């Protein structure tokens, strides 16, 4: 399943005033070939831990009696669990990695180590690997999924007139302010065209 197919499934759901991450997960569970079991888990916080991560494991072939499924696990740091807007964007962004292209996946020891080195050293744009670049792409896919055009358009006029600002919109969409500000910005339509159509 490609992201644009996922987005079409989302657009065909009954209208709601906001999109739940659980709805996105349900679509992946039902329609994404290759993801057998998708789960969300929290992990214990420690000094230096990040808000979340994603691990996708190949199928477990140890049982001859059960159908083999790949396991995708989205992890959320336990120290953000009380912050629902942050939990939602972290979980949605990590979930969107099920749509990473083959070249974007950190699927070997070498690519995994390269990814860690890049995250820790923030290389300039032209020096990054596909697996590192996939992070920004996944974040935009999460923004498009959580604030699709049919929800965004309700706020465009008020946003342009300054009648609604990021704190109020963030409260209504249960997302961090920087996420709703990005969704109302100039790049939204660029990434909508690029990834969802």
């Amino acid at each position, binding site marked *: 399943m490609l992201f644009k197919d996922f987005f079409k499934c989302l657009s065909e759901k009954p209208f709601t005033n*906001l999109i739940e991450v659980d709805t996105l997960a349900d679509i992946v569970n039902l329609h994404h070939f290759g993801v057998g079991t998708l789960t969300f888990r929290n992990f214990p916080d420690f000094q230096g*831990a990040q808000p979340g991560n994603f691990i996708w*494991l*190949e199928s477990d072939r140890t049982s001859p009696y059960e159908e083999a499924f790949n396991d995708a696990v989205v992890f959320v740091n336990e120290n953000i669990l009380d912050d629902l807007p942050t939990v939602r964007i972290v979980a949605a962004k990590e979930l969107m990695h099920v749509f990473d292209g083959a070249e974007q*996946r*950190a699927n070997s020891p070498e690519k*995994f180590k390269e990814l860690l080195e890049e995250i820790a050293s923030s290389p300039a744009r032209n020096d990054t690997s596909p697996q590192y670049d996939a992070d920004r792409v996944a974040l935009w896919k999460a923004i498009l999924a959580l604030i699709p055009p049919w929800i965004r358009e309700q706020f465009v006029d008020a946003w342009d007139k300054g009648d609604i600002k990021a704190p109020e919109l963030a409260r209504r969409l249960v997302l961090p302010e920087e996420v709703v500000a990005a969704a109302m910005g100039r790049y939204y339509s660029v990434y909508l065209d690029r990834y969802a159509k």
Partner: protein
Amino acid sequence: MSATLERATALLFPPEGRQALDVKFFFAPSATVEALAQQIIVCFDAMGDNARVINRIDRGLTS
């Protein structure tokens, strides 16, 4: 390579058994290689703990 990174890599890509198809992080600029590798180890531990499953991320926002 640090022992932590070595262990994280071995968990994701064991000589035999399930290989990782993808690994990603939601990270801040302060992230370090050592802490990211440690996070993988901690997450593998969490995979065996059913108390850490989150059944509904949104806690029924629209219901």
